[in-house]
Every structure is written in C-alpha cells, then in structure tokens.
C-alpha cells in the first residue's frame, strides 16, 4: 500500500540508544510528521470541553474573569492599598498563568491517560504533551476575549501595544512545552507526580509577581537584606513573562503602556527556553521506548 505514510520496513534490535542530538532530531521529526494528529487531538480536547458550543464558550470567557474577581476581593481584604486599576493588573497575570498551569496539568496525565492506545499502536508519544500544551492556546484565546471585555472598563489603558501579546505568548509556549515534556514523561514512572505538580504550580503562582509587582518586593525588608532572593525572584521565568504581559496590557501604576516589553529579558528567556526544550525533548525521547512496558 503506497498511500500510507508509515515506514514500510522496520528493523529493531536491542542495540544502544541514539545520541542526544539524534534524539532531539527524532523528536522534532515526530512532531512535524504528525501535525495532523496534534490538530485532531486539540480539536477533540476543545470539543470535550465544550469550546464548540455557545454555552461552553461563555464559560471559557467567564472562567478567568471569575478567578480575577476572587483574587481582587481576597487581596483587597488583606492589603489596604492595592495598585490602581487592580483588576486589570491581576488579570494580565491570570491570563497567561491559566494557560501554563492548565497545560502542565493536562500534560502530566497526557501519556498515562492513553495507556490503552500506547499498548496497541506504535505512534510518537511526544504528540500527546504537544497537543496538551497547544490545546491551552484555545483557552488563552478565549481569555483574550475576556481581556477585551475587561478593557472596556479601563479604556484609558488601551494602546496598540496590546498587539505585542502574541510575541510574549510565543516565548511562553516554548517554555511551557519544555515543562510539559518533562512532567508527561515523569508521570509514567512516578504516578504521584500529579500531586507534586499541583502543589508546585500553586507555590509557583504565589512566588511569581502575579498578585503583586516585582518592584513591590523591595518594600519587604527581608528581600532588601538578602539580595540573593531578589536575584531569584527576577530570574523566575514567570516574573519575566508577567512583567512583559503587564507592560503591554496594564502599563505602570501611573501610566498606560507606552512601549514594548523588556525585549532583552524576553530574548534571554526565549533562548533559555529553547535550550531547556531541547533538553527535555532529549529526556522524553530517551524514556519513550519504555513507556509501553511501564504503563
């Protein structure tokens, strides 16, 4: 049969593993050759979550807004004086964080939830975490609709710099994908990784400048006295991402957005994420042959 795209002849033996570069190359080839499978999986995911129904859509838009309301109420109670236009300030972080946390959570179970299929069909397992991460783009897109609605209330902060969001999203996507490969492969071997990931994500959110600004950390004496903490806080990928989103959506406390985000930091994060992605691709491809046996 000539129409099939499968390899017509295959030879497998117990011989050693390919090198790191070959593993990364195989991973990229897997994803590119199975683009359609990724697309189907993303569509199936959107379908299951009701994204293709009117009522489902409303929920996807409402969800980040409701989460924002919770945080605004919560922070207003414990902190007497918040940032001006605080709802928009918080939302600019909730929007990207929901994408990241949902993608990583879904990626964690993306392999083990397909255990039946993995035992039955030979296919590149790497498409599963790719699909989980890519499916998050759908919810991110609906989140931007919510952002549009919210901006109607803060119309004085609307600027063309909003168009920069996709650029920041690309950097976030690369970083998220790298994390997704790691947790997806790890969960095959350690089934309680999901619990750990859930708690780590929650901790990460509060350690990242989502509810507060990075600059406000300087007001805390403990941070002023321990410079290493400030360094760590600044090196957090989500500190860079949140600040970038915020600078194009919110601006500063006193002024609307008036320029691009810190491109230098974004570029550094992009390069670091690509390196990280290459590493996790290698780890994933190295562990992949064992999935069917372990799962």
């Amino acid at each position, binding site marked *: *049969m000539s*129409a*099939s*795209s*499968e390899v*017509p*002849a*295959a*030879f*497998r*033996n*117990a011989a050693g593993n390919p090198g790191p570069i070959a593993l990364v190359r195989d991973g990229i080839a897997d994803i590119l050759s*199975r683009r*359609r*499978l990724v697309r*189907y*999986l993303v569509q*199936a995911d959107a*379908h*299951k979550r009701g994204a293709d129904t009117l009522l489902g859509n409303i929920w996807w838009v409402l969800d980040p807004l409701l989460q924002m309301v919770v945080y605004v109420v919560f922070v207003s109670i414990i902190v007497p004086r918040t940032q001006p236009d605080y709802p928009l300030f918080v939302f600019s972080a909730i929007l990207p964080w929901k994408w990241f946390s949902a993608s990583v959570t879904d990626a964690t179970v993306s392999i083990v939830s397909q255990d*039946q*299929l*993995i*035992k*039955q*069909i*030979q*296919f590149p397992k790497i498409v599963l975490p790719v699909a989980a991460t890519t499916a998050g783009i759908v919810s991110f897109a609906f989140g931007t609709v919510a952002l549009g609605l919210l901006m109607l209330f803060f119309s004085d902060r609307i600027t063309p710099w909003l168009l920069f969001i996709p650029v920041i999203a690309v950097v976030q996507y690369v970083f998220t994908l790298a994390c997704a490969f790691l947790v997806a492969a790890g969960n095959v*071997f*350690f*089934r*309680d*990784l999901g619990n*750990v990931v859930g708690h780590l994500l929650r901790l990460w959110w509060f350690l990242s400048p989502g509810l507060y600004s990075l600059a406000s950390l300087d007001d805390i004496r403990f941070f002023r006295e321990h410079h290493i903490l400030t360094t760590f806080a600044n090196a957090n990928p989500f500190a860079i991402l949140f600040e970038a989103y915020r600078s194009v959506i919110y601006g500063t406390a006193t002024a609307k957005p008036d320029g691009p985000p810190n491109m230098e930091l974004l570029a550094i994060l992009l390069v670091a994420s690509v390196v990280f992605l290459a590493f996790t691709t290698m780890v994933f491809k190295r562990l992949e*042959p*064992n999935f*069917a*046996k*372990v799962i």
Partner: protein
Amino acid sequence: MQLLRRPPKLGVDRATDGDAIRAADLGVRYDLRFTKKTTIRSSIGQMLGRGEVQKFWALRHLDLHVRRGESLAVIGPNGAGKSTLLQVLAGIIRPSEGAVEVFGHVSGLLTLGAGFDKELTGRDNILLGGAFLGLDDAVTHELLPSIIEYAELGDFIDAPLRTYSSGMRARLGFAIATSVDPDILLLDEVLATGDANFREKSKARVIDIVSAAKAVVLVTHDMSWVTEYCNRAILIERGELIMEGDPADVVELHRHNQEMARRQTIEEAEKAGLDPRIVRAR
C-alpha cells in the same frame, strides 16, 4: 517490498524473498521496579534499600520466521508472552535482546474495543484513528465510507463512542485495523468479539488478507480457528518457544500441557490439604 537494513544476527542461509517477519534470539525483559504503578514515595523506599530490583523475561531466545501469505497462530497459557510478542512485532516495545525485522506495513489494534476517544463520534474516531495509525488525511477520508459500512454502525456513526455497545466498538476497531490494507496484520483475541454474524464476517476478512499474500499473526484461545484457518502455529510457555509447526500438532501439545498443568495444580492442592473439588471447579 524493500529491505532497508540487513539484520546483523540473522543467518544468510535463510531466504529473504517472501519474508514478512523475521526475529532472531528475541528477548523482552521487564523491569518490575516500574511495571507496577510506581510512586515517588515507593521509589525513595527502594533507594533506601528496601526491595530488590527485579527483572523478568517476558520473552526469551525466540526465533521466528513468518512468510507472506502465512497465517500464524500464537497459542499458549495466560501470561506466556503472546501479547508481548505482538507488541514487539508492532514496534510498540523495543526488544531487550536480539533483533526483529518486519517487512511491510503493520497494522494491529491488538486488543480491539478500546476505541480512541469515548467522547467523540464514530466518524471522528475513524479520523483520529487514521491519524494515530499514520495514514494520510486523504486516505482516511477515502476509507471512511467503507469502514462505516463494514462496521455496520448505521446512524450510530455520528453518536459518541460511549453510547456504543462493546460489540459495536469491537466492530469499529476491527474495521479500522483491517481497512488500512496492511501487509502484516496483528490480531490479539479479536475473533471472540461481536455476534456470530460478525464473527463469520471477520473470519472472511482475515482469510481475504491472508490470501492476498499478506501475513497474519494471531493470538487466540479459539483452537478451532487455529486448526481451521492458520497454516502454522507456535506454542509459547513462560516466554519460551515450546513448539512450532502444523496447527493440529501444536494445539494437541498445548491441550496436553494444559491438562498436565491442571493435574499438577490439583496434586499440589491435595498435598497442601485443600479440597481438590474447589481447585477443580476453578
């Protein structure tokens, strides 16, 4: 048919023409450390010295040779390594030892009936299945009508898979697996599914594939199927090849061994002071 790479371990005296599958000194080892659902907690326990690293050979020293047009039955008791063998042939598991070479497109929904996604319709499942199997989109769309017709699903094709009966799911799985016109079809206990009507139909389909000079490797407990439709059979016990040859002879040995194993179980139970009737009834 094209030979991509010559396997290093296979002898040159064997004919390469008309071969569908060749395996030499095949072995699959499981690391029991990971096969039971492991947790970080239990792994730390192991690292601290509790529990030993256990390895288990699901298959070992297996030499296999399947020619085109052959229908090979793999029989043996539960847990003998039959399904593992199919998984190796399908490329799902990489051999831990030895080599396997497969000439042609392999298709095999090894345990049919699982489907792809319960929430999607039968139609979407066919498209998704095609994508998982690595078929081109155009090919899948081309095959769509014939799969729907063959699976006899009627209007259910646009209903979610979760509303299907197990027979309907099995029919759909069989239809997808065989519609791709594979050179080598791997089937694991699929002939027992569906009603009598569909069983006849699936038998006819498998015979068609075999007669079209394609190879079939079949795992089954249905001995009448083995003697009637397979031209060769192998018996696997505890991961080792016990016998290879004419289906009738292999089935006879399998029946004999099963009977011996049963008697032994009863004897052991009697020695242990258990009521043999209970053991027999099992």
